[in-house]
């Protein structure tokens, strides 16, 4: 019994425990460290202070930003709608109320996971094969994985927020849909709204990543500046992006608090966006034929030969290792920083840090880390983990702001140290929802291993990029299958984990 309690750390501690993974990672980095990249880092920092103000460049960046915003907002809007619908279809509560049995929910969930398993970038490249360069390709590339991910989150939300009123309303004999509408929708609507708001930030970053495959947009410019190491030019784009992120965040916030102002601002912004639509973005309805793709696929190469080209054990192993380390880092760093710096006043500064980490695209942070240390898996994981800790940090700070600091104050008055009272107070209160969200992040991190090929070309993600660049479709197919398999496995594990969390009070 005593052993069992020892082995079951409390939830707030669980948010910190993954931080143990930082010890070997940091140790390896220190071992591999070399100061060789210091001049480059200094250049990078100088670029931040002295971004380029070349009018041609700024005009280009501004147009790029507009394209990125159009793609982000459209894909966000569409994926939110689809995500909610699919989320309801994937919820056990819905099927149990309508049919009396929950199996279709499981079917829907499993059917959706392949769509989640594949990175936006890969979806973009695959759709590009059929439809060519077209704005809708970029939008669909974001919409497909986002809808599937949102469907999972929302389905879990619905099942977690099962209203106690449900059996009462069922007993009144109302139609199942009416009962669900009255008992379930009001209960989950605020959670759904929160999550949808959160996804806009993510959609913006994905639209940026997609910019690298030629739909213009800010991402293209950033990628090119990165490739040619023009940090002054790059920072002009990064600052512009930062401003856009903050403005969008403010609009969303005011839309939730003071509706009038929010509505006015967003209408003005939309009009400005749409009005200046002499954008280099083709949004005509795409047409394409599957035949051309089947031509490519249907050559005489053997599927089995492709299967034996890779050392799957090593590749999958390193992918899992990167994912695991990056997830641990992303999960543990925000609460660690919070405890290092526990005061309501520092939260603003902390959210600045998380904003900066989200702002820097993963290939950039990987390059910056790489010029300071030799390539290794932990390095790739750190680059990926830091980027995602930006996302987790945002979630944590938002949760804590919403919960308030009352519990910390109470504990402090009781004589506890500041750190302990934050551990037992605010962190404990939000840990359940935070950990639940972390389990969704693992999914995203697995997909994102695609973008850290720069470091030692390890993992499935890199193999996928390389196979795509060789147009080796059979290997692409096998790699996609591997990604789907890993995602399904992850889903089965995190579902158990979430049931153990009793999935209560999941906010995001």
């Amino acid at each position, binding site marked *: 019994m005593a052993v069992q309690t020892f082995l079951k750390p409390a939830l707030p501690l669980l948010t910190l425990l993954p931080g143990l993974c930082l010890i070997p990672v940091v140790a390896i980095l220190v071992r591999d460290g070399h100061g060789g990249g210091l001049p480059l880092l200094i250049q990078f920092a100088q670029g931040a202070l002295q971004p380029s103000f070349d009018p041609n460049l700024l005009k280009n960046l501004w147009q790029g930003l507009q394209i990125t915003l159009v793609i982000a907002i459209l894909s966000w809007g569409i994926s939110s709608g689809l995500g909610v619908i699919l989320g309801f279809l994937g919820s056990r509560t819905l099927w149990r109320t309508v049919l009396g049995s929950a199996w279709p929910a499981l079917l829907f969930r499993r059917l959706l996971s392949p769509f989640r398993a594949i990175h936006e970038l890969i979806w973009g490249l695959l759709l590009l094969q059929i439809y060519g360069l077209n704005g809708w390709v970029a939008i669909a590339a974001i919409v497909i994985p986002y809808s599937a991910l949102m469907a999972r989150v929302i389905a879990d939300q619905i099942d977690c927020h099962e*209203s*106690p*009123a449900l*059996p*009462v*309303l*069922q*007993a*009144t*004999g*109302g*139609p199942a*849909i*009416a*009962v669900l*509408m*009255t*008992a379930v*929708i*009001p*209960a989950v*609507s*605020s959670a759904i709204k929160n999550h949808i708001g959160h996804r806009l930030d993510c959609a913006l970053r994905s639209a940026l990543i997609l910019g690298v495959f030629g739909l213009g947009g800010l991402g293209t410019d950033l990628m090119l500046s990165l490739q040619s190491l023009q940090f002054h030019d790059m920072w002009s784009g990064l600052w512009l992006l930062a401003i856009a992120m903050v403005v969008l965040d403010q609009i969303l916030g005011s839309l939730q608090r003071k509706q009038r102002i929010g509505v006015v601002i967003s209408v003005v912004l939309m009009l400005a966006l749409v009005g200046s639509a002499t954008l280099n973005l083709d949004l005509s309805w795409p047409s394409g034929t599957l035949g051309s793709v089947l031509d490519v696929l249907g050559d005489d190469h053997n599927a089995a030969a492709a299967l034996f080209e890779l050392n799957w054990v090593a590749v999958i192993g390193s992918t899992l290792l990167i994912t695991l380390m990056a997830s641990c880092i992303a999960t543990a760093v925000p609460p660690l920083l919070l405890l290092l710096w526990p005061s309501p006043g520092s939260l603003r500064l902390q959210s600045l840090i998380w904003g900066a980490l989200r702002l820097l695209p993963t290939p950039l942070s990987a390059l910056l880390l790489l010029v300071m240390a030799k390539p290794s898996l932990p390095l790739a994981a750190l680059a990926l983990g830091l980027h995602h800790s930006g996302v987790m940090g945002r979630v944590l700070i938002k949760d804590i702001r919403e919960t308030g600091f009352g519990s910390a104050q109470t504990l402090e008055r009781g004589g506890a140290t500041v750190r302990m009272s934050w551990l037992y107070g605010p962190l404990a209160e939000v840990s359940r929802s935070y950990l639940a969200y972390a389990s969704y992040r693992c999914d995203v991190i697995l997909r994102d291993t695609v973008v850290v090929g720069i470091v030692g070309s390890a993992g499935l993600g890199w193999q996928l990029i390389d196979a795509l660049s060789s147009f080796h479709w059979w290997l692409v197919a096998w790699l996609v299958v591997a990604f789907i398999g890993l995602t399904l496995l992850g889903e089965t594990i995190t579902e158990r984990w979430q049931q153990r969390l009793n999935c209560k009070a999941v906010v995001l």
Partner: protein
Amino acid sequence: MTALLELHQVSLDQRLQSTSLTIRADERVVLLGASGAGKTTLIQLCNGSLKPSKGSIQWRGQPFASLTRHQRRSIGTLWQDLRLVEELSVVQNINSGALGRHGLLWALRNLLGVLDKDACLTVMDQVHLEPSLLNRAVTQLSGGQRQRVALARLLRQRPELGLADEPLSALDPVIARDVLDTLLSFPGCLISLHRPDLIHRFERVLGLRNGALVLDAAPETISNSQLEWLYRRS
């Protein structure tokens, strides 16, 4: 008198042992027993939210499983934890009791604004809720007011058999009297109580002890020692 609810040799795990029971229309029944004696289990078996491991339950001669949702509407429950939809207003909660008599569109309109105001005000008056609370969110109400909202919702449902699980605990005497009066106004009712002093208001008293039905009699015939034995430990 027609039989409303019939239980034949119903058992559920360790919680309830082979119990047979018939509740007729126009019969008001009180259920007594110490905590853990199986009262809540019995109530939940009667409204269908628990399924017996052995035995059968019939409503008006028809097995529970085959009831349509319209037939199930005839059994209404006042839950101990009330089970309101916390995100909705008073009027929306009360109206949700009438979902079974209306279609999908009505349910949608209920979520969008105030619907069937007169019918709601009538039931609110019956349970002594001020009309000014109509649009208030239920989270802003006091415990007693919330109890009345749950009761008003039950009235909107208009069940033939009202079930209630310890509806009077933690209520002040005035509210408790109102709640009991309302519950007793249903054609038939089965109420579990911790209040032996109120048994004279019912026509029939059931006593549970360690998951077994040990008492089934008219209130006049029950002695104090019988009641004491019901609540004695071990």
